[in-house]
């Protein structure tokens, strides 16, 4: 039994907004009441449910390639010195596995969603995920450029495609479906892209990105996945891409979906010189369509490394910056590109991006629809989240920051006209309760009885950034993992998996295709359940 008494509780899932409440924890979960055991006196402190990152890249072949590409960053990164309770590692742009767990827990985050996993290398992603201590994890599998999937959609075999998707999900031991630049990454195998929803896709005659988006969203709904289609739209990063994004959202009409890092998809203008923020249009769409959620993908000025399955975009970024470029083609499944990047306040495009991310967080009215993210490490590293929270909570601080932007930013962004300031309740929704609900993780982001006892306790502080950077206590599954700035315990987290039902004939269908499509045998392909250290399996969608 662990009791937390006297703290001011912010628990949006239960509508509790800053009330003094006592929390009782038994066997890793909240219970209505109890006695005995340790008591933490949280008088004068602020209590949130543990943070949930809905979209991050912390494990897998791509981030690991980025680590290899950036030794110069590791050299200046925060070093984690080995101790009795802690293994050594490095922070920085692409933190090492052990350090990733320490850094997330250090910020009060207790659940993270690795948002892009190719099935072919999922076995490796799980190796890395199981190395990340403390936090619970789930992962999304890349589906929108998979050759078998696209061939089926091209042939109009929707039902079979749905079964194949379900088979892939379990083969990868995944939690949900990610779509990245649908069709565009498949076209990148030919050095091409597919930017608009009605574009043709190289190698296909009828299929368009629009067909893929709609079909995948429908499949996720029909399979009753806890998390809907997680979509990285086509035409990322390009001036004027707001029309593509709105077109994509219209293709999702009638379905649930989560739009990843929408900041990168909310630009007006015709070229880099005329680029401007079009977040008002995008926010208006979200404000009138409750079937959708999104994460901001906000950027912060400074150095980072960009990692995405969007291969053609990364080639463009390499050409724009002339910096290092890594390209990974994952056979017939997906692609990936890695380019280090520096966001500069003096750069007009970067300035627009910076404002756009904050605008989305402030203009989308319902905090249950828009969540805190930097698309780590693309817009900035996750350990810089407190900087964003400060920008959201303090309009004056935003105004100060706007002053360092170029003069010609005027008229291109809406941020100077926005006075909204996040309350603590809004922050708790955007960093915990909201993303947990969007992920369908019913026991997360919720301080109610029966839920996982993941709690972060902050010392109330005038400095928002200091308060959110240094929680006084972090409790994971009832265990005090951070106390007074020290890592006390490093328990292993769980991994959430879904097991969707599928037609038993699906394997007979896929197996022969392996001979043609894959360089790995069918038997070796699925990740063995025994490789997942602490699986938490949820069944969904009955077999047909």
């Amino acid at each position, binding site marked *: 039994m662990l009791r937390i008494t006297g703290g001011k509780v912010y628990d949006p899932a239960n509508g509790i907004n800053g009330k003094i409440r006592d929390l009782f924890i038994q066997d890793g979960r909240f219970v209505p009441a109890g006695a005995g055991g340790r008591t933490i006196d949280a008088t004068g402190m602020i209590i949130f449910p543990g943070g949930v990152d809905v979209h991050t890249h912390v*494990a897998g*072949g791509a981030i*690991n*390639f980025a*680590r*290899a590409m950036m*030794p110069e960053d*590791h*050299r200046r*990164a*925060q*070093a*984690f*010195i*080995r*101790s*009795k309770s802690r*293994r*050594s*590692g*490095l*922070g*920085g742009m*692409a933190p*090492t*596995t*052990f350090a990733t767990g*320490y*850094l997330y827990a*250090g*910020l009060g985050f207790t659940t993270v969603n690795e948002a892009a996993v190719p099935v*072919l*290398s999922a*076995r*490796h992603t799980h*190796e*890395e995920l199981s*190395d990340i201590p403390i936090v619970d994890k789930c992962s999304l599998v890349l589906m929108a450029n998979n*050759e078998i999937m696209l061939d089926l959609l091209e042939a109009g075999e929707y039902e079979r495609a749905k079964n194949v998707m379900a088979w892939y999900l379990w083969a990868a031991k995944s939690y949900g479906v990610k779509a990245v630049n649908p069709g565009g990454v498949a076209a990148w*195998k*030919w*050095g091409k892209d597919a930017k608009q929803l009605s574009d043709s896709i190289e190698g296909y005659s009828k299929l368009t990105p629009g067909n893929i988006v709609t079909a995948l969203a429908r499949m996720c709904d029909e399979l009753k996945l806890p998390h809907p289609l997680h979509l990285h739209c086509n035409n990322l990063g390009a001036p004027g891409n707001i029309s593509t994004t709105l077109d994509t959202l219209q293709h999702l009409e009638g379905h649930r979906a989560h739009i990843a890092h929408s900041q990168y998809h909310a630009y007006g203008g015709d070229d880099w010189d005329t680029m401007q923020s079009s977040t008002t249009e995008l926010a208006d769409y979200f404000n009138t369509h409750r079937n959708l959620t999104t994460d901001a993908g906000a950027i912060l000025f400074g150095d980072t490394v960009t990692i995405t399955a969007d291969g053609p975009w990364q*080639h463009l970024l*390499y050409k724009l910056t002339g910096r290092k*470029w890594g*390209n990974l*083609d994952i056979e017939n499944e997906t692609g990936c590109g890695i380019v280090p990047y520096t966001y500069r306040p003096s750069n007009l495009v970067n300035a627009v991006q910076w404002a756009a991310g904050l605008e989305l967080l402030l203009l989308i009215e319902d905090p249950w629809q828009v969540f805190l993210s930097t698309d780590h490490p693309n817009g900035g590293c996750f*350990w810089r989240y407190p900087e964003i929270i400060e920008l959201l909570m303090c309009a004056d601080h935003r105004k100060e920051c706007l002053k360092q932007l170029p003069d010609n930013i005027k008229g291109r962004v809406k941020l100077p006209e926005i006075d909204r300031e996040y309350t603590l309740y809004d922050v708790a929704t955007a960093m915990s309760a909201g993303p947990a609900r969007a992920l369908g993780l019913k026991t997360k982001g919720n301080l109610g009885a029966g839920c996982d006892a993941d709690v972060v306790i902050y010392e109330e502080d005038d400095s928002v950034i200091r308060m959110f*950077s*240094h929680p006084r206590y972090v409790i994971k599954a009832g265990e005090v993992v*951070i106390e007074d*700035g*020290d*890592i006390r315990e490093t328990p292993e987290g769980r991994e959430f998996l879904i097991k969707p039902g599928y037609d038993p004939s699906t394997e007979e269908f896929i197996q022969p295709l392996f001979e*043609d*499509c894959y*360089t*790995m045998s069918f038997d*070796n392909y699925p990740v*063995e359940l025994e490789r997942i250290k602490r699986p938490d399996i949820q069944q969904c969608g009955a077999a047909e």
Partner: protein
Amino acid sequence: MQKSKFLPRGRKDRTMVLVDIRETKSAKAADIFLQVKPGKDFELLTILRAMIKDQPVNQAMVAETGVSLQALQDLVNRMKSCKFGCMFFGMGLSMTRGKHMNSAALLTLAAEMNAYTKFVAMPMRGHGNVTGADVVMRSQTGYPFGITFNRGYPRYNPGEFSTVDVLVRGDTDAAFIIGADPGATMPQPAINHLACIPTIVLDPHVTHTSKLARVHITTAPAGIAAPGTAYRMDEIPMPLKPALKSPYPTDEEVVRRIREAIEKKPFWMPDDSEQMTLAQV
């Protein structure tokens, strides 16, 4: 060779060009063989980079590479007109004159080729599970090899912290070797140092290194009698499914038991290390 939707005739739909300093057995499998003069890889790659961008090249410099201008022009045309190009490279580039500069030139060539068609490059790694070791070191420490933990956290400097450098300098007072036989490949001063310190070898076989080691623990051979994971050169992990049973423990089991025994001893680091806080975030 594999047939596929876009290459229905398999090998016949592919073109393989081999570049080497001598006509090896691989030349027979190749469609085109280009014999480069030893130590001229960097020059050849740089000339190719110029020709791909239609820049003039110096005839005398081309001649020095040992490959004719005509052959190079043919290669450039083939590269630009192919659907998907892939360059594989190995120690012939990375361990000869120019070393990492050669690899950098090749990788730049691959990157620049993407202005014309899809092109990639991939290093051909050593035998066994070199790629797997590299992948795990990267995810846990940020670096692939040449890592020191002597300050309690990982630092990297090939040429200083690589195994061979540490051994030659005599900077290590014990060695623990798994799945490698440095006694067969490393320079004599490194081998001499291994022989004077407590060297512990885990290996299924008697090797040059096991013969000079103080302790040789025989382990079950991975993939034959021990399960596990091996990484392909493209960093895709493959499960190892043992076909035989072995009376010997696996490498993993031995390491785990050693670690468990060490954990029973008093923690060796000063308590001060516990004071390392998150305040630096």
